[in-house]
């Protein structure tokens, strides 16, 4: 039995050393990740044990402590943790009423090479699913004839720009789906994609 114990301890130690030497952390402080990947990681992981929490519940600094705690609890990788943190920190921004001098100053250009489908796949699909029916509680069904795509383009663009919470939904869609890098042009493209696909 003692020999077996020694072998098991040696196996644990070897495994530990391999894992420890496999990668060094980003070293960046405060940690930053990819918000669009974070949306998927958040959708994949956070509902495994508990109800999904709205990004607006906590401030950016509070989310740091919370996701580090959850990394320990849920066995998340460091990269998934940083991505989820970036998504939650992007999700809790309060939309600021911007004052623009003329409409012509608002950039309507889409990001070069980024189609509406690309935007949907990278940012929206984590919650809305590849079939548009929604994969997290509260996400609406885009294929429903009486669903949200019945709204006017102006209403939908306003929701995409500033975020929106469906009635009865446990959390709001963050502004720009949590991906602050998207331009107005990108959002128009993804809206066209939604209307032509679902």
């Amino acid at each position, binding site marked *: 039995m003692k020999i077996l114990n020694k072998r098991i301890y040696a196996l644990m130690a070897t495994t530990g050393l391999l894992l420890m030497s496999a990668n060094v952390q980003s070293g960046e402080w405060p940690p930053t990740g990819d918000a669009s990947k974070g949306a998927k990681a958040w959708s994949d992981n956070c509902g495994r044990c508990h109800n999904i929490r709205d990004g607006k519940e906590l401030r950016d600094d509070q989310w740091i*402590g919370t996701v580090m705690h959850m990394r320990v609890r849920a066995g998340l990788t*460091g990269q998934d943790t940083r991505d989820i943190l970036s998504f939650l920190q992007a999700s809790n921004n309060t939309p600021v009423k911007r004052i623009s001098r003329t409409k012509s100053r608002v950039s309507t250009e889409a990001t070069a090479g980024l189609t509406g489908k690309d935007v949907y796949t990278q940012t929206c699909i984590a919650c809305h699913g590849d079939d548009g029916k929604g994969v997290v509680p509260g996400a609406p069904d885009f294929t429903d004839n009486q669903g949200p795509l019945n709204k006017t383009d102006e209403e939908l663009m306003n929701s995409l720009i500033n975020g929106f919470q469906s009635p009865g939904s446990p959390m709001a869609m963050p502004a720009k789906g949590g991906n602050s890098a998207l331009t107005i042009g990108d959002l128009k493209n993804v809206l066209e994609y939604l209307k032509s696909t679902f």
Partner: protein
Amino acid sequence: MSISKRALTKTVLSIAIASALPAQLLAAGSSSEEIEALWQTVEQLQQQVAQAEEWKSPNTLIHMAGYADVNYVNTDAGSNFSTGTFAPIFHYQYKDKVMLEAEIAFTVNEMGETSAEMEYFTIDYFMTDYAIIVMGRFLSPLGQFRQNIHPSWINKLPSAPQGFGHGGAAPLADVGIQVRGGFKMGSAINANYAVYTGNGVAGEVDANELEEAHSPGFNADLDGAKNYGGRFGLYLPDSKVDLGLSWATGKAADIEDLPTDFTIKRDWDFIGADFTWHLGGLDVRGEYVKQSYGERADGSSEGADFDATYVQVAYRFPSTKWEAVARTSTYNQPGDTLDRTTAGINYIFTGNVIAKVAYEANDNNAKTAEDKILVQMAYGF
């Protein structure tokens, strides 16, 4: 001609801003109203930046999380209001390298006396993206319910399954060291793991018969032999399936009437399996745990098994805050089998604030278990 103070201020501000703004802006034909709006925006931004500066991440973060619940219980014998557990979790974190975690559970007994119990207290070193060293008193990494599901804002019913509470078949805590973390196995599988060694567990003995399994997290190695084991889990994000297997082995001390002779020890083994499956608003989970205590070396006391199982189904009604939950659980311990079936309705105010109403049917060999109506308000923070 009288000039109002506001008009004068606007004029002076306009001149001042105009002198500072690029010529192109003025050439574009900015009106005084637009300049004033711009000035207001600048002031708003200055205020927001000043406030945001205060919350920029210092090297050490102090953070509090936790949960609490208040309850109402009705049985044939009467009814009671009660406070459940108030369990703040303190986090002190140095960058993303080290985190101190401590959860203290405050409870109040029937006589109104408050007690505090250290649920866990660890210092975690985030070694790499895939490995965290956790040392101290930790929730048992064996199984799933005790380490992740038992907080009242996560547990979908007001009570725990039979065998997964204090003195049950699922180990509660241990004091030792563990390495835990996660890694990707291709693009479709996330793996998570925990391996640990710790002081271990003890069996409560009366008249040489094992009666109860004890794993509160002993702060000393009572039997002189470390236990070790762990859990390995696979999560399949596409199908929303979680699977976990747990295993541990070592020795267990005997606890009898004090003074206790801790030199008496037995073999101890643990196995467990757990699963979770999500499909839209449907949440199905279950777990099996078994602790096996060997007989005493001198043959003066036989060994015994403690095992427990639960299966839970919950369904969140679409586009509402209502959720229905049902759970059945069984705990087999020496001389008795405890069954519990619970069904309830939850109202989810928000993800971390939940009101629960449930009916709990209890049964045991002696038919002494009472059925209960449970009402609970739970808050995760």
